[in-house]
């Protein structure tokens, strides 16, 4: 066991990262991601099997399998966070799309959408084929990079939302006042004409 401390150090680092991502997903998505937890169960299984192995070949194979499961746990937890953030961005996009003042508050709105689309494609491409998805552990560094970027994008939308609402409300009130004043003018004209003929 103590002949391969570096293998355990690597596995420990991956497991720790998986724990961090799981906790982050709990905070972002407010859901426990069962697939990621299952992967950590398999890590434990392969680790214990490796520890009970008599020869180094079996030990290496089991440690490698444990590492792959830990990487998959990182991927699954991170993917859940990414999906949750993309859904929030989608909800904002749906609210903003018919409003003129969106581009006044967010002049780079189109760039933000392009970034979101790039991240969405990055995650969807892995799921595009069964083979890629079964070997998703190799993509875990890529999805980790997406998380910080996505958090920034969703935070931008969250900050812009009240400003867009305030501008929309002002425009709505101006529009209503304009319509009311036009009706009032027409009414006044009709009344004055009516009084004139009386």
């Amino acid at each position, binding site marked *: 066991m103590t002949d391969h401390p570096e293998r355990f150090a690597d596995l420990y680092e991956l497991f720790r990262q998986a724990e961090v991502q799981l906790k982050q997903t*709990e905070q972002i998505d407010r859901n426990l991601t069962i697939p990621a937890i299952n992967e950590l169960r398999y890590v434990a299984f392969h680790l214990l099997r490796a520890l009970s192995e008599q020869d180094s070949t079996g030990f290496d194979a089991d440690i490698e399998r444990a590492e792959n499961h830990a990487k998959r746990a990182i991927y699954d937890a991170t993917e859940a966070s990414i999906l949750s953030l993309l859904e929030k961005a989608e909800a904002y996009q749906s609210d903003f799309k018919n409003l003129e003042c969106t581009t006044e508050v967010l002049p780079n709105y189109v760039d933000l959408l392009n970034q979101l689309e790039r991240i969405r494609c990055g995650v969807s491409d892995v799921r595009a084929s069964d083979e890629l998805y079964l070997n998703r552990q190799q993509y875990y560094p890529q999805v980790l990079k997406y998380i910080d970027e996505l958090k920034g994008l969703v935070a931008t939308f969250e900050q812009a939302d009240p400003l867009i609402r305030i501008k929309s409300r002002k425009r709505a009130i101006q529009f209503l006042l304009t319509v009311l004043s036009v009706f009032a003018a027409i009414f006044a004209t009709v009344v004055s004409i009516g009084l004139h003929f009386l």
Partner: protein
Amino acid sequence: MRKQLDNASRWRLKNMRFLLYPFRWPEQSSQSALIGADETATRALVARLAKGNVLLQAGRYQTQDQLNERADRMSAHRFIDNTHD
């Protein structure tokens, strides 16, 4: 004439939507609205038996199937239409 009436009604609808948007009630996410009755019963059972994790006790967890559904839905969405995809 019909085309003008259609254009006028689209204009009214567009302006009505922007009139209503500032006064909308923020949407509350409701887990129970998204899952069926059987699933709700399962989550209630998990919540009753779970100890330790508050999310499990609240019935807030997602399975592989639910994750796949969300991923499929997001795959179908486009934030921006790139015609040269």
